[in-house]
């Protein structure tokens, strides 16, 4: 069994790791004013790996090291998504790094390492592998969120993130131990088999599940484990905030979805109430607290806490349909959040301000940024012609189909609440006049212009014609969930 491990299937991971070391090394040989080359090498490298990976791993279905590590369409989907997000964040960082940060070599290399971690999280087929990749990602993010050395807020964010992150890792590990004690295995597939054989759910299993969910809840910032999120979002350098908001969530849900679908599905009656409650609490709390925020990064932090609630809904109602819904929403959420964060980064690069009132009169100062932020926020609120409308509709339909209509109802109310604080930003930009002495036009560099433009176009495309994405995702979820209830759906 161990004889034929197909190491060649790990080429994408090797290449990304290699690219990170190339950047570390290259950093020594570049004069400070030419460090931008590092970013371009990273992006072009990632694009190259991406172009290589898709045809290389397409329809490949294999597992390495006795199921420890999986190479399938599901993992491929998230690998591609991770690389795309990593590349976008590096592109969006270039101007910010040049202006506010030192040590660009380490910055880009660590982002690349975290992309590697995200790729591994989606591919893990076993709890300890999952834990190790999760920790790799977390450590990268701890460092990145403290990267603004001169900024005490950034330092605070990093320390807070490390302490609470370490605490949650403890919970997670203890949960894994309990599950191992109860089931005698850490492999997802074997866990499912063991769970099916169990008649009565014993205490160890329940405690294990609870600890596992709490630990993962910390990592993805679900209420009541969310309190690190606003401070870290506010303190971290702007592009890293985008990265934490998008990348870490995508990776966490990639891991969680596979874990619950492949490993814990037989015990769904034990955990779905817990997850559904967590989801309802998260979406309501996140959106309600966001109402009171005056700093745009904190507002988006709480709004993304709320979004985690929507995503958890996809886990609570776990089925093929809701996995599709979760992944569709994850993609739409990623594109939208990246667009809004990069638009705000472009604003911050020029003004150095990040309060919501500072956006007053932006429609006159930079119509492009104002329009991009409006489109993104409307998409987050789920308004039509934008990604958020379709992805929420899909996700909420899926929850309704699994008899969680009440949760879908809570989610709709939560998105109604979110509309209010998104509209407040829109009001500042379009209705309020600019403050005195702040009327000057904001010049957006071509790079950010293009990046935000492309992301906004993706947001609109997903809202108008999501079918290609949905087809890809349906193909990917086939791997982790038996297509049993797809047949029950009886497609017309």
């Amino acid at each position, binding site marked *: 069994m161990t004889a034929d491990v197909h190491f060649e299937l790990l080429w994408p991971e090797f290449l990304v790791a290699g690219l990170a070391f190339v950047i570390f090394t290259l950093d020594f040989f570049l004069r400070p004013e030419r460090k931008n080359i590092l970013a371009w090498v990273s992006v072009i490298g990632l694009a190259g790996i991406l172009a290589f990976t898709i045809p290389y791993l397409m329809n490949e279905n294999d597992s390495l090291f006795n199921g420890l590590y999986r190479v399938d369409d599901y993992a491929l989907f998230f690998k591609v998504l991770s690389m795309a997000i990593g590349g976008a964040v590096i592109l969006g960082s270039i101007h910010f790094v040049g202006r506010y940060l030192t040590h660009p070599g380490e910055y880009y290399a660590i982002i690349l390492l975290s992309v590697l971690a995200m790729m591994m999280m989606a591919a893990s087929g076993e709890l300890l592998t999952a834990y190790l990749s999760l920790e790799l990602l977390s450590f990268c993010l701890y460092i990145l969120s403290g990267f603004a050395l001169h900024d005490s807020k950034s330092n605070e964010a990093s320390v807070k993130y490390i302490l609470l992150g370490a605490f949650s890792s403890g919970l997670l590990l203890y949960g894994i131990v309990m599950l191992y004690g109860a089931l005698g295995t850490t492999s997802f597939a074997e866990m499912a088999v063991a769970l099916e054989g169990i008649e009565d759910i014993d205490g160890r299993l329940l405690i294990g599940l609870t600890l596992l969910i709490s630990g993962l809840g910390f990592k993805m910032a679900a209420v009541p484990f969310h309190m690190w999120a606003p401070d870290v979002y506010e303190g971290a350098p702007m592009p890293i905030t985008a990265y934490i908001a998008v990348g870490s969530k995508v990776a966490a849900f990639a891991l969680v979805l596979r874990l619950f679908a492949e490993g814990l599905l037989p015990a769904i009656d034990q955990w779905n109430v817990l997850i559904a409650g967590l989801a309802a609490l998260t979406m309501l709390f996140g959106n309600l607290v966001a109402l009171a925020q005056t700093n745009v990064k904190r507002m988006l932090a709480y709004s993304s806490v709320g979004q985690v609630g929507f995503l958890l809904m996809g886990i609570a109602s776990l089925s093929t*349909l809701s996995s*599709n819904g979760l992944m569709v929403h994850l993609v739409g959420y990623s594109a939208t959040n990246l667009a809004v964060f990069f638009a705000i980064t472009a604003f911050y690069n020029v003004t150095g301000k990040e309060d919501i009132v500072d956006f007053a009169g932006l429609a006159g100062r930079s119509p492009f940024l104002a329009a991009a932020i409006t489109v993104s926020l*409307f998409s987050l609120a789920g*308004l*039509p*012609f934008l990604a958020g*409308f*379709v992805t929420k*509709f*899909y996700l*909420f*339909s899926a929850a*309704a*189909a699994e*008899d969680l*209509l009440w949760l*879908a*109802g809570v989610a*709709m*109310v939560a*998105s*109604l609440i979110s*509309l*209010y604080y998104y*509209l407040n930003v*829109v*009001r500042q930009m*379009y*209705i309020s006049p600019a403050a005195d002495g702040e009327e000057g036009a904001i010049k957006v560099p071509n790079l950010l212009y293009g990046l935000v433009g492309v992301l906004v176009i993706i947001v609109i495309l997903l809202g108008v014609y*999501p*079918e290609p994405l*949905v087809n890809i995702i*349906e193909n990917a979820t086939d791997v982790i969930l038996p297509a049993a209830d797809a047949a*029950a*759906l*009886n*497609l*017309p």
Partner: protein
Amino acid sequence: MNGIDSVLIFALVAVPFFGAIVLAFFPADKHIMIHWYTRIIAAVGLAIAAYLFITFDTSGDLTKYTVDFDWLPSLGIRFTLGLSGITAPLMLLNAVIFFGGVLISWNVTHRPKDFFIWLMLLVAGVYGVFASKDLFFLFFFYELAVVPMYLLVGVWGSSTDFGTFLRTKEYGAMKVMLVLVAGSVLVWIAILAMWMEAREITGIADFSIAGLSQVEFSEGFQKLYYPFLMVGFGILAGLWPFHTWSPDGHVAAPTAVSMLHAGVLMKLGAFGILAVGMVILPKGAQFWAPTLIGLGTVNVLYGAISALGQKDLKYVIGYSSVSHMGYVLMGLGTLDVLAVDGAVLQMFAHGIMTALFFAMVGVIYQRTHIRDITVLEGLGKKMGITGVFLAVAGLTSLGLPGFSSFVAELLIFIGTYRTYPILGVLAVIGAAITAVYILRMLGKVFFGPFDENKWKDLTDANKTETGVAVLLTGFLLLWGLFPFRIVEIIDSGVAPIMERLGN
């Protein structure tokens, strides 16, 4: 697509939508070009809607109007547009008011490009709701029609000072947006519930109205979820006690938006109750009909009495809209073919009438910058034309024979009287109160003592504004004097629905 008619339906939605996108590339300072471009877009829509209305086929075969594309098969969503006897007049209504609204906006000089982009998106959304035969897209266009309201009211609207407190345009904009989206949440819940239930019964995932109306939903399910649709759509129709957004919103909005808002947008709500609620959940509709008719009666009386106490011209009309939408809701609640015909005709008649009202109030406000009835006096001396048309709208509003509202309200009164005699009588009392506040307002504003010094430079409605008024008055008279054709068209759409309801 099935031939020219279906292409026209598609074009009706697509022209303002893509018109808005094209307008985004216009230079922002070419005001005249932007105005004329929008007028042409509106005129094209009017021509198409008029053609579809005139040539409408009442024989019952609507397949030639159907546009149908696959969109997201895994959820059972199709992009399906169509036309029915109910929507043909409402499409025309939207086209007429949009055209009138664009003309009356000749004086918009503050960022006209953005203004018309949002206005066109709103209109595209309204056309889309009327045309959609699939609940996903109906909901989609419904939200599309609501979203532009925020900026249209917030940027181009006006604030009202009540002395002790201020109703700012930002307040109005936020209120309209949040309340209407809250309504859409209820509708969304009901849509998902019906989709889920149908999927369990038939095993087919399907969002189409036609498909869902074939499903035998249990009586308990229908009774449970019909109120979601009734209240959700009802909020948009100004259903009491969820009507308060409507006067605030109408007053804060700029003239063209008030026209579209009171004229068409509120009709979307009533249309939704009829074309979604009653079609898919007939047993629920029967069970809740008395409630609907009761709330409608409250609407009529409450709106009329509230209008009595208003000093701001726009608030008078805002509350009168609430009152008149009450007739529509009452008509729908009777589930009687004749009264429902009347309700749909009332949607059309009230739409035109209220648009005329807001247009003329806009003319007065633009010249005097006052809307307070206690201050405006005797304007008839210098604003004769405005006065005449305001009087026309007022007389239509109180149901004078010869104007279209008379026919509509008569049908509703008869229908209500046949089912609930007492409520029928109350509705007539509502009409009497309408006469009081309308005549009082007209008398005060146009025939009181005139202060020559204060209103020295006052001018009457110009040619464009008069043209709009003539256009709208033409429709009021046309259906008032010759209601047969439009009632025939409406009936061809209403009768099959009522037949399924067993009436």
